Every structure is written in structure tokens, then in C-alpha cells.
């Protein structure tokens, strides 16, 4: 098997697994309990909190563990709307956010909030000037992702953070894809809230966090207990949190080496596909790009068909086609960067890890070449293109 879907989830690293297992077996105490067994869990959670905080230059007490990135996004947006709703009812975000942000914004619109969804350019970049221009006297929140999950484009977060701080507007970033992959410093980048998820950095699933800058008046999201400084009730997912801590410490330790290796593999894969597969387009920014992200549209074919064929050859990948989204529309991200529907349907995301090898990528290129060509032979769009040679494809 060749696993190229690390943006979906990653394998738990051996040191992560080793660190969390005792908290499922012998150290099962509730961190809220007074006796020593509980204290051991409490210490473990607090150690993990420090490790997670350190990775983004935050203080430990600014980290609130959640059940994952989606919960953190929901919390950040809904609680800000609630806390600042008297001050204003306008929110700024972008068209390429994860659904955890977009659908929460739709929900808030139904509660009477107004949301501006900023456009991005063809590479998926948000223009900080557009953020500035969208600000109104009643704007209470700006939420822009650190890096996009589909096309890997890294957004100018520090600039947007600077604009938000200068205007006194809360700035949230969904850093689920960027956290642990590229350097983030919440103080330097003037980030007020940040969402992260453990399973994207070789940690366990079902655990994440929301960073909330000290002094920010954000209410509780889950009520019912004093956990997480009264802000997130529920007995802590101790093994998950411990694993998250280990994964964060590991990510910080290996970031430079890991990202260097991934960039090399990524650029090799991009170069081979661009050279050897006709009628394709690299989606996302060429340089301002997550180290492990490769995303192509192969014109005249549909992504799910390609995914199944690659799966038959043992290759795990992902697509932005409608058929993989469970709806009839292809990825909103690919449409936002200006792709035509049929180009968006033909997208393939290959997200690497530092463990992939050039040999694996060579096998993937061969499989992609073969199957794209086979699906094109089957495609009425390709037939029309070959016969007419005048379709307005970007080729």
C-alpha cells in the first residue's frame, strides 16, 4: 500500500502510541479526582498542554483541549458571536474555509449575523487588502485558515492578524492543516484564536484544541463541569490528550527535517506529473504551499473513478469531485480558485509524509499516467476535445 492521504489523517507515531497507552491501562484515573491516581492523569494532561502551547508560542493556560478541529472551529465562531453580538453582527471569512467554519457561518447567518465570504485568487491566496476593505464598524470576527486542506496554499496569516489587531477585531485561524507542519507563532502573528487537531500530525483521532488568547472574553461551549478552566466541560480524553502532547513535541522536534524531505518529494512528484501527464493543472500556490501537498486537476476525467482505480493498485489518495463529497457539487475550494466544474471534478490530492519514498512516487506517477489515459479513452468530453480541439480548457 502507498499512503498519500496524510491531509485526511496520519498514522499514529510509535512514540505517540507508547506515551498514551498507559493512560488507557494502568493510569486510568480521572484528572479531577483528588487521590494520586487522579493526580497522575492531571500531571499528564498538564504536560501535554505545555507541549501543545510551546509549538505555537502560546502559554499553557491558553490551550483548551477539544474533541478535534471541528469542535474548536465551532466553538471559536459561535462563542465569539455570542460574546460580541452586542458590539456588532458582522463576520469576515473566506470562500475556501473548511466546512467546519463555513457551515458554522451559515448557522450564524440564520441567527442574524452577516458574513462576508472573501474571494481568493487563482492560487487560493487571500488578499490582506481585501480583508481590510471588508471590515465594517460592526465587524466582530475575522476567520481565515492558516493553510488550505485541499490545495495546500499557505495564507498570509501574520498580515491579516496585524490588520485585525490594529482594528480591534478578534482574529481566528483554522490551523488544522498547518499546525505542526509549518512554523506558527500566535504572538508574532497576532492570532487571538487557533484551531488544531492531533490526528494530522501523527497523533490520535478525536482530540484537538482551541488556543484562546489570554484576556479574550470567550464563553464556554460545552457546559457541565469545571474542566479546561471552566470553559470546556467533560472528563478529559486523557490518552488522546497525552498522545496529542507527544505528537506536538515530536512535530516541533522534526519539523525542519520532515518538511525539507516532504518538499523535496512534493516537488519531484509535481515535476514528473506536469512533464508526463498532458492536460493537467497544478492547483494551489507553487511556493506558498504546505510541504506535503500535491493537487492536480486532470481534464476530461472524473476524480472518483481515478481514486477507485488507484485504490485497486493499492494507492490511497483523495479528490474534490462531487462523488467524493456526497453531494452533486465538486469542491467549493476548487470552484473558488476559478476552476470549471468539470475541472474540479477531475481533481486528485496526493498528500505526502516524510516516510514516502521516491520509488513509491515513481509507482504513483505510472499508475496515474495509465489510469488517466484509460479514463480519457472512456470520456465523451475527451472525445469531443480530440475531435474539435477547440474546447476552452486551460491547456
Amino acid at each position, binding site marked *: 500500500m502507498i499512503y498519500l492521504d496524510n491531509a485526511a489523517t496520519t498514522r499514529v507515531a510509535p512514540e505517540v502510541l507508547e506515551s498514551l497507552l498507559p493512560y488507557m491501562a494502568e493510569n486510568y484515573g480521572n484528572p479531577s479526582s483528588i487521590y494520586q491516581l487522579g493526580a497522575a492523569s492531571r500531571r499528564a494532561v498538564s504536560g501535554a498542554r505545555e507541549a501543545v502551547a510551546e509549538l505555537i508560542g502560546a502559554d499553557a493556560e491558553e490551550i483548551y483541549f477539544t474533541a478535534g478541529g471541528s469542535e474548536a472551529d465551532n466553538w471559536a465562531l459561535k462563542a465569539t458571536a455570542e460574546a460580541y453580538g452586542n458590539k456588532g453582527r458582522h463576520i469576515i471569512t473566506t470562500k475556501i474555509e473548511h466546512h467546519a467554519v463555513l457551515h458554522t457561518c451559515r448557522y450564524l447567518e440564520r441567527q442574524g449575523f452577516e458574513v462576508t465570504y472573501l474571494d481568493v485568487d487563482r492560487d487560493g491566496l487571500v488578499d490582506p487588502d481585501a480583508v481590510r476593505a471588508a471590515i465594517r464598524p460592526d465587524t466582530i470576527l475575522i476567520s481565515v485558515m492558516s493553510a488550505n486542506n485541499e490545495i495546500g496554499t499557505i495564507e498570509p496569516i501574520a498580515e491579516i492578524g496585524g490588520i485585525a489587531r490594529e482594528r480591534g477585531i478578534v482574529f481566528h485561524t483554522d490551523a488544522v492543516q498547518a499546525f505542526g507542519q509549518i512554523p506558527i507563532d500566535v504572538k508574532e502573528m497576532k492570532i487571538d484564536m487557533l484551531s488544531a487537531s492531533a490526528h494530522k500530525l501523527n497523533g490520535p483521532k478525536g482530540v484537538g484544541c482551541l488556543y484562546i488568547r489570554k484576556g479574550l472574553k470567550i464563553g464556554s461551549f460545552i457546559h457541565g463541569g469545571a474542566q479546561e478552566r471552566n470553559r470546556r466541560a467533560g472528563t478529559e480524553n486523557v490518552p488522546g490528550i497525552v498522545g496529542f502532547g507527544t505528537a506536538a513535541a515530536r512535530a516541533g522536534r522534526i519539523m525542519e527535517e520532515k518538511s525539507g524531505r516532504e518538499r523535496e518529494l512534493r516537488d519531484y512528484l509535481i515535476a514528473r506529473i506536469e512533464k508526463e501527464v498532458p492536460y493537467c493543472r497544478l492547483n494551489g500556490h507553487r511556493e506558498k504551499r504546505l510541504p506535503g501537498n500535491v493537487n492536480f486537476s486532470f481534464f476530461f476525467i472524473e476524480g472518483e473513478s481515478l481514486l477507485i482505480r488507484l485504490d485497486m493498485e493499492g494507492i490511497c489518495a483523495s479528490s474534490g469531485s462531487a462523488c467524493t463529497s456526497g453531494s452533486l457539487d465538486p469542491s467549493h475550494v476548487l470552484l473558488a480558485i476559478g476552476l470549471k466544474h468539470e475541472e474540479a471534478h477531475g481533481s486528485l490530492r496526493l498528500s505526502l509524509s516524510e516516510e514516502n519514498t521516491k520509488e513509491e512516487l515513481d509507482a504513483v506517477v505510472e499508475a496515474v499516467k495509465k489510469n488517466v489515459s484509460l479514463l480519457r479513452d*472512456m470520456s465523451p468530453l475527451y472525445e469531443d476535445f480530440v475531435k474539435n480541439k477547440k474546447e476552452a480548457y486551460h491547456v
Partner: protein
Amino acid sequence: MYSEKVMDHFSNPRNMGEIENASGVGTVGNAKCGDIMRIFLDIDDDGIIRDVKFKTFGCGAAVATSSMATELVKGKTVQEALNVTNQAVMEALDGLPPVKVHCSLLAEEAIHAALWDYAEKKGIVIEGLKPPKHDIHEEEPAEEY
């Protein structure tokens, strides 16, 4: 998520290709929604479908339903082909996931569109055949949040 039959027809599609100077060609679907199906029919003077080919841009279910639909109409009369419903295509494939049911509608529509083209070329009327809807997704409900 797909049945073995669907996977079989997807990995080894039957009757994939084109027919030159076909008696009837029908293309339905919409690139916007991610599937386009084209059916080529070769119909003899007795109204028997001697050969049928397809080309499809679409997901695994779209390819498999195209393939199965061609199998179901091959060697049949025009009237029999008209009675091959999306239900029949789905059953022959041992079912489809709910979100993929529209793919089987597309196969039925593509055959009807090819038969319509044949009738027009021949200047005949096929009883019970309605003009093709080229875009079957027009009435799909909007996504809910």
C-alpha cells in the same frame, strides 16, 4: 460502498467505445454535476439493437451503470430497450448507494436519447418515447446546512 457487480463493471466495462455512423447517438448529463453519458446504437432494419457502445465521464457508479445498461439493451428490440428502466439497471448491479441512484437515471436517459436520435434520423415515431432531458440534475434540491 459498491457491490461486487458494480466494481466488476467499473473495472472491466463492457461495450466501451464508439460506433462510427451509429443509427442513434444520445448524450445526457452535465459536466457541472460530474457525469456525462453517451450511448451509440447500431439498429438493423428489423429494429433490433445489433451493437451498442458507451462513453462516460463520471464516477464509478456512472461507469458501471453505463456498462450494465448497454448489456441490457444489446440484442433487444427498440421497444424492449425502451422498457429497460433505471430500476432494472440498478437491480442488475445488485443495488447502488443512495447518493448514486441518479447515475442509473442517467443510463436510462442516455438510452432514450439515443433512441430519440435514431427515430428522428429514420423519421419514425417510437411509441412511448419522450424527448430526452439532457440535464437530469435540473431539479436537484440545494445542499442544506
